[in-house]
């Protein structure tokens, strides 16, 4: 019998097993085709929806490709100056200790200009959640070198490849932050395969849950592609990411709460 089911018969609401969360707006994402920012946005919004937190959430968008996150996430949001999202979130959270407050930041934003704000929010153990999208480059401004750019990698400002002796080393900021007593849960994920998406979502759920329990700062890094900045197709970029980014930025939990 089943063989006879038509497409129209299958595609009815009762049978729906996956649909974009209603906390993503109808606006088309401004990201390049295949950019991981979109998936990261979706997972965060799914968790907020599933945990029923829309009314309790205040998000902070950075300066970077995700500067327009507020156009896509159907929650109250503030746009922060470049690098300052953790300070902005601190200001919110201190005054609304029961709201769910998060920042969403790129690697330039978080690990270059925002180093001080990031490190000190973590050191104070601000009870906020930081989502950190590390694509090893400044996507927004046209593909310049970021602190997390890999050695030898060519970017608009390292056209002959990053020379670590003059331009510094890929900054493993996440490992540093995990050393601070103020951070509670620190993890590194990716969103380029179904399995990784599922894991990343679990991590996001934890990071939200721990904030509700007032455990301190939770930090979720998502290693992602910037296919435009890397000058690759999306598929190529994900492969390159696995082969080149993951060895330097290995996926997995970096700091987990002691049981």
């Amino acid at each position, binding site marked *: 019998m089943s063989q006879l089911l038509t497409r129209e018969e299958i595609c009815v609401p009762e049978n729906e097993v996956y649909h974009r969360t209603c906390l993503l707006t109808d606006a088309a994402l401004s990201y390049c085709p295949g950019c991981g920012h979109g998936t990261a946005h979706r997972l965060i919004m799914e968790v907020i929806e599933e945990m029923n937190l829309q009314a309790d959430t205040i998000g902070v968008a950075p300066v970077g490709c995700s500067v327009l996150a507020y156009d896509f996430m*159907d929650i109250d949001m503030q746009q922060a100056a470049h690098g300052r999202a953790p300070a902005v979130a601190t200001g919110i959270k201190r005054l609304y200790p029961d709201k769910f407050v998060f920042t969403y930041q790129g690697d330039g934003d978080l690990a270059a200009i925002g180093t001080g704000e990031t490190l000190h929010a973590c050191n104070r153990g601000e009870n906020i959640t930081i989502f950190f999208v590390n694509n090893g480059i400044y996507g927004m401004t046209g593909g310049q070198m970021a602190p997390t750019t890999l050695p030898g990698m060519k970017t608009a400002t390292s056209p002959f490849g990053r020379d670590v002796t003059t331009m510094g080393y890929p900054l493993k900021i996440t490992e540093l932050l995990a050393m601070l007593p103020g951070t509670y849960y620190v993890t590194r994920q990716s969103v380029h395969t179904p399995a990784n998406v599922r894991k990343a979502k679990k991590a996001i759920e934890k990071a939200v849950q721990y904030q509700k329990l007032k455990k301190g700062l939770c930090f979720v890094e998502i290693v992602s592609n910037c296919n435009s900045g890397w000058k690759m197709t999306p598929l190529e970029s994900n492969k390159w990411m696995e082969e080149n980014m993951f060895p330097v930025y290995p996926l997995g939990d970096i700091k987990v709460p002691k049981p």
Partner: protein
Amino acid sequence: MKDIRLMKGNEAIAEGVIRAGCDGYFGYPITPQSEVLEYLMANNPEERTGMVVLQAESEIASIHMVYGGAAAGKRVMTSSSSPGISLMQEGISFMAGTELPCLLLNVVRGGPGLGTIQPSQSDYFQAVKGGGHGDYKMIVLAPASVQEMYDFAKLGFELAFKHRIQVMVLSDGAIGQMMEKVELDDQLPRLTDAEIVKKYPWATTGKTPDRPRNIITSLDLNPVKQEIINQNLQKKFRHIEQTEVRFERFMCDDAEYLFVAYGSSARVCQKAVLLGRAKGLKVGLLRPITLFPFPVDELARLAKQVKGMQAIEMSAGQMVEDVRLSVNGVVPVEHYGRLGGIIPAPDEVLHVLEQNFIHSKKEKQYEPATY
């Protein structure tokens, strides 16, 4: 019975913000204003009103914590002194672009650079013309006494929320460090979260089903929209110019010569006016209390009455430009300034005025321009 105390200016404004129902202070130590944070930490506002006080890791962090709190509808503030305020310029510009209310205190010290910790008025341009990028104005209040340091806490928050604008109290090391009598008001309650939701529907307090999401942003890449945003900002500034000018006239009614000075300098000039009057000179003082909006009309009016205006500043000549723009050539406007942390003396400034206008050959008949 009135609650009267002897307080430092820095302490008075700290007490003032607690009593004005401030929700949060974020700041970083710097002389000569560290007493603001110290007073708040010692006087337990967390217990008194629930106010949050946090020492930030820098002035930049401070201003962005203020941004976050303000964008969520809270009464928040920071304070610093000149170099620290310079560091906040990007943040201030962001608050201007998002029209967020807040209170900023600059207890000015002498610059440029590390300069000196002594009082100065050399940050007038930065406060009034715009130290940050873009076309914006803050309301700038210039206290001339410890009482005003206290009073401008409440006034500052009122104006900030009335106009959704940043209010800067432009004080200096003298006003910040000196002790005077202060009369304190009763404690105002802080707004509850529910009241904030109601009073400030624009605030990012969490999107509830009854309204669309709130967004605080200064970005718009569409030039047409961005121009409208900017035009609306400008309209607000024009409105504030119409409605919020504050100044003090001291013996102006029959004045032939006018001191124009604010803050500490105005204190000095007030004494100079008395000295001058004792000598039989018809001297007066116009003290701008709001530096933006500047008392343009009052000065234009006085320009028709007096023979000359003497601006006195602890700077190389900043406010004097606004005096000149107000007067527009109708009477001569002279500037006298002390630099490097030195406060001029009353007899000194009186002497300058006499030299410039009374004893000198410079004095001429001025024909008022006709437009």
